[in-house]
């Protein structure tokens, strides 16, 4: 088995993977003819309008500009917005009665998300003003930034300046006016900011694994966004996650043993949260978003964003390398993961609001989402909110001797969080538990739908059988 053991993989793999790649199907999705792909590679005319020059020479297309090598600036912009709009309409992400909160980090992806949501709102407003019956209201838009300065302290002047820049970006958008919420990540604890900050620091310090720490912070960021959305009456949360980002998540989740829950995280819609999350940029590459920011001079605020470390860092450099070697790799990764069966919550729940429903019906194209499962999964991990695989629920023997709330909490987490976030030492576990913010605790108590009860039953059984043995 000389080379059948995988060792021979890539030498040969390199020769062939060109043949393996399918033409990415997304063009078909937004109305650009897919069969135009192979032509016109020899001169620099836009594939779509066949009039203007492409933004970048075709040879550079692989090098990291995505569609920039095939389209002129206008068509590129139109194509990118088309992907966004298709994702929004096909998945009924935004209905006229919605109030959407755009999570803004200052980086190019969320900047484009903000821009596109804004353009969509702007058009809706124009239509509204022009229409006679005014039957379709215009959805509202707000912007949120989670300030993690408490965890990664930056120079405070620089930081304040960044916040000012973001405020300016938001306020410079044409009306309707968008509210801008800046919340320190410590505010998931209480309104007392400094107390929350200290507890948060302690909480993160209780996590020894670098990757675990980073992931916990990510989960807390989501809690903060949910909190802002909930407190301010938003009905959807828009994230700027692009194909490249999602590809990294696919690999990272696989590496962390989260194969079961992975399908939940990478769909256009994720309604397991109180405020459903939507990913309208799921089909856009990071290079394309960067390119748009350059072309349209969309201001970004880069100072705040940090590169990831640990497993996440390793994964993102791996994906970057693969993407450089083959520019459709990220799409292929996301396409593969897209074939996994999604969960029942990966669609916008039906609303009672007749008006909105009608409107979204009108817009919504009949689409593919047919979750196989009719039953909701039993429970979610209280930390990362991943659906739990039944066979991963711990056997009762694993916490026979630990029936403290902390111990039971630890046992109700997914294996991945148990490994990289939850402390192993019982005493540090008690401390960790005492530092958790309320939403996570209550999620463990009731959000887990019966998980907790199930665990208690298991403990009861265990206690009974112990007694029997003893007598």
């Amino acid at each position, binding site marked *: 088995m000389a080379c059948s*053991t995988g060792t021979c993989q890539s030498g040969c793999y390199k020769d062939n993977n060109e043949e393996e790649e399918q033409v990415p199907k997304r063009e078909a999705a937004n109305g650009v003819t897919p069969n135009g792909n192979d032509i016109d590679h020899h001169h620099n005319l836009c594939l779509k309008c066949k009039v203007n020059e492409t933004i970048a020479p075709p040879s550079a297309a692989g090098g990291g500009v995505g569609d920039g090598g095939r389209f002129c600036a206008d068509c590129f912009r139109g194509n990118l917005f088309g992907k966004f709009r298709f994702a929004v309409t096909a998945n009924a992400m935004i209905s006229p009665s919605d109030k959407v909160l755009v999570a803004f980090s200052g980086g190019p992806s969320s900047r484009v998300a903000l821009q596109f949501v804004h353009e969509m709102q702007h058009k809706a407003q124009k239509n509204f003003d022009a229409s006679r019956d005014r039957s379709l209201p215009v959805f509202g838009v707000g912007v949120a930034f989670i300030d993690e300065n408490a965890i990664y302290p930056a120079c405070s002047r620089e930081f304040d300046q960044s916040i000012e820049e973001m405020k300016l970006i938001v306020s410079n958008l044409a009306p309707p006016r968008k509210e801008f919420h800046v919340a320190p990540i410590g505010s998931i604890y209480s309104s007392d900011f400094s107390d929350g900050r200290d507890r948060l620091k302690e909480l993160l310090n209780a996590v020894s694994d670098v990757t675990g720490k980073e992931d916990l912070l990510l989960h807390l960021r989501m809690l903060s966004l949910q909190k802002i959305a909930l407190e301010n009456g938003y009905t959807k949360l828009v994230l700027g996650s692009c194909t490249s980002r999602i590809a990294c998540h696919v690999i990272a989740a696989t590496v962390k043993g989260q194969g079961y829950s992975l399908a939940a995280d990478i769909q256009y819609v994720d309604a397991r949260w109180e405020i459903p999350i939507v990913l309208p940029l799921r089909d856009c590459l990071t290079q394309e978003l960067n390119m748009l920011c350059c072309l349209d001079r969309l201001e970004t605020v880069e100072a705040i964003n940090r590169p990831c470390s640990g497993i996440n860092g390793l994964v993102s450099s791996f994906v970057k390398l693969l993407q450089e070697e083959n520019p459709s790799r990220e799409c292929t990764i996301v396409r593969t993961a897209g074939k996994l069966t999604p969960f029942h919550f990966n669609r916008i729940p039906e609303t009672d609001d007749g008006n909105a429903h009608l409107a979204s019906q009108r817009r919504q194209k009949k689409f593919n989402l047919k979750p196989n499962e009719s039953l909701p999964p039993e429970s979610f991990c209280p930390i990362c909110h991943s659906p739990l695989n039944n066979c991963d629920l711990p056997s009762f023997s694993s916490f026979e001797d630990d029936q403290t709330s902390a111990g039971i909490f630890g046992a109700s987490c997914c294996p991945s969080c148990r490994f990289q976030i939850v402390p192993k030492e019982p005493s540090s576990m008690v401390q960790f538990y005492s530092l958790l913010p309320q939403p996570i605790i209550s999620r463990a108590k009731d959000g887990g739908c019966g998980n907790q009860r199930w665990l208690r039953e298991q403990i009861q059984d265990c206690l009974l059988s112990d007694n029997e043995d003893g007598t």
Partner: protein
Amino acid sequence: MQLTLEFGGGLELLCDSVKVHNVNVDQGAGEKLTMKNLLAWVCTNLIKERPEMFMKEDTVRPGVLVLVNDCDWELSGQLDTTLEEKDSVVFISTLHGG
């Protein structure tokens, strides 16, 4: 300092297909020879081709096992392991063949 170095699992191909090397490594007077020093020495003196198969950054390439006196170097502090007279160091690649 006299050391016995052994290359296996295909790494011998990087040093003229010789598996066992009895070598004399000089170190500064009073200074301890660590694995870190030894790796640098091996790279300069023994590895004849494709050093990237052996090293990555300042340590051995992931997938290369190192044993100092038949003991996994992960137990003795990896690069900080100090070597003594007549020690034996084995490098085995796990990356070849199956």
